[in-house]
């Protein structure tokens, strides 16, 4: 129990348009049965974190429903475990701003946890990372803070919005930048000792800061020993509808799928009680991910079907992401579309989006 975790959603924008009308980005379904936050929680739980807090500010109903008491990650322990912390500010002397409000008002979480180090992450970087390795690196480099980054082979549009790291040959971070052409994508994850974290929080509040990382850490590269940990495993960033669509469909690449789901980092999610997927005589499925509880009579190509989707006879689903419990009527045609949960497409309807700009249908629509 060396480390405790914080998934800090406070600074994340609702970037996914229709998909984040009613839920925060972290709760957006991904990869046929997961939600984005599953990756962060699973990586922490796999590394044996006994205390994990989720800082959330708004649209957290579906997030709370999904995480529950953390049973799916074995976090439903008597002491510690998973804490979902929505805003609850009752300190009359509180002058904190931004995400520092969360740190200030939930200081008890840090004091009660037995771990001496805190790993803080967001939810937009999908990966299977071993935080024990990060911890060892942090120790051996005698770092004050360790930032985690991925050196990407090719900069994709979604990397534009990410912060980048300038790193010396020895691995020390000399600058956190927003420059476009830098391949060292900061994964929005860092490790820091609890003691230093609380000092930084106090300092930030006293100086009117409103963003812990930007105002109290990134700005202090000269004063603190900030080291970089280079993560080399599978990785993608979900911070726009385009990147969401592209990286979901990227799971159809068997190598990416295997590396993400069949490596030593098991990704867990809330289990549903669905029966196995049922393929009927007329089913024609290729290059697709299918969740349990689906009933398929039609054609499904290059698509991702979440749990409990029904595809009726002669329906065609191509290059699409179909979320939980959608129903595609007989003869309906879908191409380059994202259907949010519980959408019903009636008989013979056609919806064709653009490859770069998929058509997004919000929850519970009947078309």
């Amino acid at each position, binding site marked *: 129990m060396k480390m405790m975790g914080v998934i800090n959603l406070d600074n994340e924008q609702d970037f996914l348009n229709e998909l984040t009308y009613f839920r925060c980005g972290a709760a957006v379904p991904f990869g046929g049965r997961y939600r984005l936050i599953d990756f962060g929680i699973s990586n922490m739980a796999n590394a044996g974190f006994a205390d994990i807090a989720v800082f959330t500010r708004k649209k957290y109903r579906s997030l709370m429903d999904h995480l529950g008491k953390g049973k799916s990650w074995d976090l439903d322990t008597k002491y510690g475990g998973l804490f979902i912390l929505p805003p609850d500010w009752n300190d009359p002397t509180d002058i904190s701003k931004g995400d520092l409000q969360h740190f200030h008002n939930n200081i008890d979480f840090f004091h009660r946890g037995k771990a001496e180090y805190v790993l803080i992450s967001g939810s937009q970087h999908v990966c299977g990372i071993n935080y024990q390795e990060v911890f060892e690196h942090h120790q051996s480099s005698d770092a004050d803070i360790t930032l985690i980054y991925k050196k990407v082979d090719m900069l994709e549009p979604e990397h534009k919005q990410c912060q980048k790291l300038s790193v010396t040959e020895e691995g020390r971070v000399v600058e956190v930048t927003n420059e476009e052409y830098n391949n060292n994508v900061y994964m929005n994850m860092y490790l820091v000792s609890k003691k230093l974290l609380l000092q930084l929080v106090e300092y930030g509040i006293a100086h009117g800061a409103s963003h812990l990382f930007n105002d109290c850490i990134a700005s202090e590269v000269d004063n603190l020993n900030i080291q970089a940990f280079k993560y080399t495993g599978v990785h993608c960033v979900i911070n726009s509808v385009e990147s969401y669509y592209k990286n979901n469909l990227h799971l159809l690449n068997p190598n990416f799928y295997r590396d993400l789901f069949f490596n030593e980092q*098991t990704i867990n999610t809330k289990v549903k009680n669905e029966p196995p997927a049922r393929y009927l005589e007329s089913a024609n499925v290729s290059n697709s991910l299918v969740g349990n509880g689906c009933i398929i009579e039609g054609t499904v190509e290059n698509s991702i079907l979440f749990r409990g989707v029904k595809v009726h006879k002669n329906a065609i689903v191509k290059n699409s992401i179909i979320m939980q419990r959608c129903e595609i009527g007989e003869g309906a045609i879908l191409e380059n579309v994202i259907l949010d949960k519980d959408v019903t497409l009636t008989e013979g309807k056609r919806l064709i989006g653009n490859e770069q700009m998929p058509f997004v249908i919000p929850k519970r629509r009947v078309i």
Partner: protein
Amino acid sequence: MKSKKECVAMLLAGGEGKRLQLLTKKLAKPAVYFGGKYRIIDFPLSNCTNSGIDTVGVLTQYQPLILNSYIGIGSAWSLDRKYGGVSVLPPFQAQEGGNWYKGTADAIYQNINFIEQYDPQYVLILSGDHIYKMNYAKMLQYHQEKAADVTISVIEVPWEEASRFGILNTNEDLSIHTFDEKPENPQNNLASMGIYIFNWDLLKTYLSEDAANLRSSHDFGKNVLPKILDDGKRLYAYKFQGYWKDVGTVESLWKANMDLLEDEPQFNLNDMNWRMYSVNPNQPPQYISQKATVNRALINEGCYVDGNVDHSILFFGVHVGEGSSIRDSVIMPNVKIGKNVTINKAIIGENSFIEDGAVIEPEPSQESEITLIGENSHISANSNVAVKS
């Protein structure tokens, strides 16, 4: 003061299931896999939960390791209750010694103390051998309406098959007048399903009597029920309608699995009003590749299909390599199938490894036979397996 439980269920799960051969080598019959995701015991346990029965004793004896860990504290079926819930009841030692369960009635007799804790009015006896959905609350209501001492659930079987079953001969009001165990000339076609509701006070008396009888084989069907009937008690048959399959043999297990693959299966696993619960392994969604074809199939999470699957069931974590063809078969969890493998009409036990080019199918002369491959088997490349089951 805890409120008493109206009805406690006792599930007989100690049977060996010899006729399932290799499948029950290290496994009690109720723990045998079924339907791509389930174990047989999921069905009676889910029925209990859905019927509002929250106190279930599971009597185990034969090879209980996997069954015990599978049941756990019953959370998969919402049976992890503060008061009641599921309790696994193996045979035990007491001051005056101890015994294996000598028969179905003896197993209940030895656990009288368990039942007494809940001071129930009724006891429901179930077995872990059948695939069916049943609302036990309706049966209990019937039992009360008839003011019965014992109610036995029955199903109408085709007359020509009646001689294979334990037949109940009934009067017009469905009260039972005689039992016929596998009659040569059946007078009725109502077969016992091995599901009984007893008034607990009455059952307790008869169990004690039966236990004292050294000549009894301590079986409900053979000893206890006939004795109760002889004594002129009120026994009623409760007619069950719907899908009910005994999966006691390799053939019937295979057949019941295949029943799920019809376009409109009689046993509907997708029925949201009567969910079947099971322990859910956490696995990624199944991947069906570009080259794969999948028709008339049930496929579970964690499967990776690169070949052709027709009229078959794949449990979780099964990999099917390129060019392989699976037909009329049941593939149990985590089986890895290489490339260009042919599997026809077979049941492949869990964690088996089938190497490239292997052929598993019945000899033409034995087309009706099902090939059974035991768990953890290793079938080497290009070998031809036509084991008779």
